[in-house]
């Protein structure tokens, strides 16, 4: 794995300059590596990880199980793409098991999400059924534990 990528994944908040410093390479080399990761679509983008409890007040998230009938030659891809292109859809994945697509939808209100599901999602050709689950509380977001309860650092500042 690329060393720059590894550093990013460790979740450290370092500037390009600091990354270069840590890895012992120049800022240009770090930028080049970031460009490469982006152009090869390994690194898709930068997005802050928000605590939905605190930051996205009033934002409603729903997990939707979607069953679709696959098409000849296209499989699930065309419908999955149609669903994915909606701004309301945060992520969309093909699953094994009892349903086909796992879709996460975000909206300002319950009503907005419900309307999106019933008027947009459910009406796409090939969608057989949807089951919508509203998210009540998040405990972990992309590797970050949200609920307080971890002890503070109690390590003595100097120890043998």
């Amino acid at each position, binding site marked *: 794995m690329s060393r720059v990528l590894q*550093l990013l994944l*460790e979740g450290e908040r370092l500037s390009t300059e*600091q990354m270069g*410093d840590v890895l012992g390479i120049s800022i240009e080399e770090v930028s080049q590596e970031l460009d490469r990761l982006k152009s090869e679509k390994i690194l898709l983008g930068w997005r802050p990880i928000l605590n939905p409890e605190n930051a996205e007040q009033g934002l409603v998230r729903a997990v939707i199980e979607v069953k679709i009938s696959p098409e000849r030659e296209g499989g699930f891809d065309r419908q999955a793409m149609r669903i994915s292109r909606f701004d309301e859809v945060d992520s969309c994945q093909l699953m094994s098991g009892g349903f086909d697509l796992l879709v996460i939808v975000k909206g300002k209100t319950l009503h907005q999400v419900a309307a999106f599901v019933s008027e947009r999602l459910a009406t796409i050709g090939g969608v057989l059924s949807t089951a919508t689950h509203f998210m009540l509380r998040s405990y972990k977001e992309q590797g970050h534990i949200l609920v307080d309860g*971890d002890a503070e650092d109690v*390590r*003595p*500042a*100097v120890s*043998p």
Partner: protein
Amino acid sequence: MNPDQESRVAQHVRSLPRSGIRDFFAIVAQMPDAISLGVGEPDFVTPWHIREATIFALEKGRTSYTDNRGLGELRGEISLHVEKNYGVGYNPEDEILVTVGVSEALDLALRAILDPGDKVLYHQPCYVSYHPGVVLAHGVPIGVPTSALNDFAIDPDALEAAWEPGCKVLMLNFPTNPTGGIANREVLERIARFANEKDLIVLSDEIYSELTYEGSHTSIASLPGMKERTIFLHGFSKAFAMTGYRIGYACGPSGLIEAMMKVHQYSMMCASILSQDAAVEALRNGGESVARMKEQYHRRRDFIIRRFNEIGLKCHSPGGAFYAFPDISSTGLDENEFAHRLLNEQKVALVPGTAFGENGRGFVRASFATAYEKLVEAADRIEGFVNSL
């Protein structure tokens, strides 16, 4: 201390100096915004699967004493682990003792082996407890200097030069706290010959062995003829980030382990059962966590060593452990002035090298078991300080 009370304290305890680390800690503790590179433990919290196993043990009501030697299950796992990773086989029945950290194991070994006046060779700078540990067991410590010239690996010639009649024990700690020094197979073979020739018992503290960055770690216990005269000491604190669990172990010839067991059973009784359960989980499933942490230490090491050298503080690359040990003599300050002024002027805490023995003169210890952000910032501040001199 009140002179009345001081006269009541045993002579050999009175003779021990206070740890230099403790004095320095008192000052750093007053400065909450200082960046500390003075911490001698991992900055990772114990991997969750190990913590979770501890909780499960508690839920099951595992709150009793255990066999004095430690849980049979744990001794079995230790036996497998040591054989696989260090190439020495120990019988879990009578050649392994579970202890409260390597610290206790070391104390037990010294107390079990030494008669008053027996001499103990140890390389120095070294972990702060070695010298006092020998004194507390009524032994006579004989320091063997190691040097930055060979990256603080032990020099067998220096060892032979330091030897004198009455030496019974040789203490080794590779990789070394505070220098990160390591001993390769060839050096260990020479030390092994020396130990055989002088009939020394070797206490080998290998607590940092998983954190070896250059080449692979060799245990002196694995060399021909050495198992019989070596007590292999190891634990979970560093590699598994389990310092607070206080859990370690000793492996050695049954006669010596039995003697240590005697001291252990009358003083400590047994290690905490919760820590022992956690240790079983660590050995069974902790390999990946160790590898991940080691990788991070490795990269931090490369960064901080490069920075020290850029700043003009000559620093060898430590082969193991998580400490940089730069030479600060070029600044014209001694290690105490350097550490105190750096703390006051730039709020970065390092440990003066002499806290680890006379041979640490002119050096400071900087732990790189520290998050990158802090490490980067600390390096910049040290640079600012050195440039201001």
